[in-house]
């Protein structure tokens, strides 16, 4: 009964929402010209990256914090008694993985570098890096991670730390995250580089810390 009511309500809502979308006037504000106009000063040539790391870089800073936060919460939940041990896959797969991982590293680097002027960037590069790590784990070449030691913790936090440090340091000459146009490109590249590394570890961590949870279980 309740189920049907909910589904009915959802249907009505979808119809109302859809029909309201159909008769919508053009938006009075258009940010595209502004995005394009300041692209020069933003330090990157690709508009999405400019929005992501410059115009609305503050969102991205907090977004990385969300990711870190989720990891903290996961670490707080998983027990630390089990020992991680990889489940070895077929040798063929392992060989393939050994071949694929360097390729993926190259791809990640390309994506990172490409982000400045075409689609790609730290997030995409980071996720490729993460995929490589996950692949190594699934083929039994990398164990699930235990509670992180100091080195891994620094690796996980590095991207965020660099981002935070840049944001704070820029306060000295203006506002939070206000890049001087001359330095913008370099600073953003630094941030993206550190972010790629950390995002790779973070995203892989979402998998590897969890994966360990039940691995040791009988």
């Amino acid at each position, binding site marked *: 009964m309740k*189920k049907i009511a*909910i*589904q009915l*309500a*959802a*249907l009505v*809502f*979808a119809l109302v*929402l*859809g029909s309201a*979308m*159909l008769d*919508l006037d*053009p*938006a009075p504000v258009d*940010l*595209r010209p502004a*995005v394009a106009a300041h692209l020069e000063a933003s330090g990157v040539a690709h*508009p*999405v990256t*400019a*929005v*992501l790391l410059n*115009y*609305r870089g503050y*969102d*991205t800073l907090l*977004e990385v914090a*969300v*990711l870190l*936060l*989720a*990891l903290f*919460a*996961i670490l707080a*939940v*998983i*027990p630390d008694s089990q020992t991680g041990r990889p489940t070895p896959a077929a040798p063929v797969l392992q060989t393939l993985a050994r071949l694929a991982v360097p390729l993926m590293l190259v791809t990640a680097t390309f994506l990172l570098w490409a982000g400045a002027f075409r689609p790609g960037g730290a*997030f995409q590069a980071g996720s490729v890096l993460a995929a490589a790590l996950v692949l190594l784990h699934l083929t039994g070449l990398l164990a699930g991670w235990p509670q992180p030691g100091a080195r891994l913790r620094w690796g996980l936090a590095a991207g965020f730390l660099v981002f935070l440090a840049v944001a704070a340091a820029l306060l000295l000459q203006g506002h939070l995250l206000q890049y001087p146009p001359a330095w913008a490109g370099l600073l953003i590249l630094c941030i993206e580089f550190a972010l790629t590394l950390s995002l790779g570890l973070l*995203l892989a961590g*979402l*998998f590897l*810390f*969890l994966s360990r*949870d*039940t691995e040791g*279980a009988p």
Partner: protein
Amino acid sequence: MSTGLLFALVGAALFPMGVAGLLVQRHLLRRILAFNLMGSGAFLILVGLAQRQDVADPVPQAMVLTGIVVAVAATALALALTRRLYALTGRLELPDVEHD
């Protein structure tokens, strides 16, 4: 009809679908699935509605990138909790609300 508006409409269908799934389903993994569908619906609307004249708008695109990362973070946390709950109680559903 423009591509933007079309996919915004798809989003308008996906979002309620996800919400209904989140409310109706009992199995925790299914609820997590439903949550992801709901999020995708919102993302499609965010970009699609803004691009209903079929001109790319980088601002909502960047927002969706942020949103996707947030969604995967939430999903991973939800899965961690689900797995932990299962390890502790052997259940994959939340107990009924009954307090004291």
